[in-house]
């Protein structure tokens, strides 16, 4: 998954940093102090993970986005937003390229990993979209920094919606004893999932990099899906726990995706913040534009096209590779098939009977297994080396 310095999460420094950050933020009781300390902590993490040049560049990028979106003249604002968008997208592309072009010196190269990091890019896009809708008004630079690079959401999301951020910005979250215990439970659950279940048990016992064949290959496909889920949801739980402790609203990212009964439900439960980001910023704008162009005719075709483009971009956001393009197509077509099947079932049986049929325990179990196997296969497809595929 796209991330900034995920391997750093396994290092003691990272945890010492988090503990120190939580302590500092707990001491900063006054809201304005809390925001300033939070921004300093966020920039300090960039400094720790990359270098001071990276930190300066990220802060400059935040300032560029902030002031672009606050320009009062509408035409000028669009121009600045366009230029900031080009800058953001270029750095994201450089970050995604397997090798940073050699024209950059070694000390500068790490900056691209910081400034173009996948999650900062997504928040930047969300921020610029809000800016183009003139929704940024009233936000300070410190608050912009806190939206774009929150330290506990840098490693693996979630991607907070700008509207959610604005809504919760001045909501004071008071930490009760029960909340603190829940926060520690979330952090403990994340650590346990990551280091004990995902790395300690599944990765070391079951995963061989898909070198095996026969029934063990089939087992490894299932285990790989479990590994990705445990590893990824672990980061979210830790982020949620830290967010609760430091009084920063953090959205949930997973809601029992393994038991999803179909692929549509799966995407409502897996990496929820990214799915919602794609719906808000890619799917709906493309769908609306398509409907406008077609004059409202062929809505299914327009929705299918929007879905395909959304998943292609989602795949490419993860990695610029053909495997991810195919992965995106697989999921888009699976959703199309699922929606077509559901409407065919409703038109044949009627809404009530179709619902009864779908809720039958055996059908429900089969549907859950099929969804699980489809997602597991699509993830394994990304992990299997190309040379191994044609064996």
């Amino acid at each position, binding site marked *: 998954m796209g991330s900034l310095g995920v391997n750093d999460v396994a290092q003691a420094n990272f945890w010492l940093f988090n503990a120190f950050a939580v302590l500092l933020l707990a001491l900063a009781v006054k809201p304005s102090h809390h925001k300033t300390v939070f921004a300093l902590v966020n920039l300090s993490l960039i400094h720790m993970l990359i270098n001071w040049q990276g930190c300066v560049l990220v802060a400059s990028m935040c300032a560029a986005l902030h002031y672009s979106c606050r320009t009062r003249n509408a035409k000028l604002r669009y121009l600045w937003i366009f230029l900031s968008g080009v800058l953001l997208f270029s750095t994201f592309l450089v970050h995604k390229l397997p090798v940073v072009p050699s024209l950059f010196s070694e000390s500068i190269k790490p900056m691209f990993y910081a400034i173009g990091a996948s999650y900062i890019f997504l928040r930047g896009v969300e921020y610029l979209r809000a800016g183009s809708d003139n929704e940024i008004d009233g936000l300070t630079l410190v608050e912009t920094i806190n939206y774009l690079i929150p330290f506990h959401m840098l490693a693996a999301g979630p991607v907070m919606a700008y509207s959610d951020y604005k809504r919760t910005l001045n909501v004071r979250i008071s930490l009760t004893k029960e909340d603190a215990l829940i926060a*520690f439970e979330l952090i403990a659950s994340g650590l346990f999932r990551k280091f004990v279940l995902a790395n*300690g048990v599944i990765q070391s016992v079951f995963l061989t990099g898909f070198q095996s064949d026969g029934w063990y290959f089939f087992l490894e496909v299932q285990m790989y899906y479990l590994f990705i889920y445990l590893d990824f949801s672990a980061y979210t739980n830790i982020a949620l726990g830290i967010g609760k402790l430091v009084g920063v609203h953090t959205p949930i990212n997973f809601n029992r995706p393994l038991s999803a009964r179909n692929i549509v439900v799966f995407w409502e439960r897996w990496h929820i913040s990214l799915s919602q980001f794609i719906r808000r910023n890619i799917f709906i704008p493309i769908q609306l534009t398509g409907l406008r162009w077609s004059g409202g005719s062929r809505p299914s075709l327009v929705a299918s096209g929007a879905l395909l483009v959304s998943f292609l971009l989602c795949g490419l956001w993860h990695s610029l590779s053909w495997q991810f393009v195919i992965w995106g197509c697989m999921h888009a077509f699976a959703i199309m098939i699922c929606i077509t099947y559901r409407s065919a079932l409703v038109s044949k049986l009627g809404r009530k009977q179709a619902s009864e049929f779908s809720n039958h325990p055996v059908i429900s179990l089969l549907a859950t297994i099929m969804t699980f196997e489809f997602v597991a296969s699509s993830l394994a497809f990304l992990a299997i080396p190309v040379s191994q595929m044609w064996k």
Partner: protein
Amino acid sequence: MLKKLEALKVHYAIRIGWVVVRVVLAFWMAQTGLQFYYQGF
């Protein structure tokens, strides 16, 4: 019985204990490297 346990805050002790167990296990596993290795089936 349940009320007595609740009065003794046993559920808090269990929750805190489980948090401690998970954190210690996680840091031990992270510190010592991977404890189990694929032996082949």
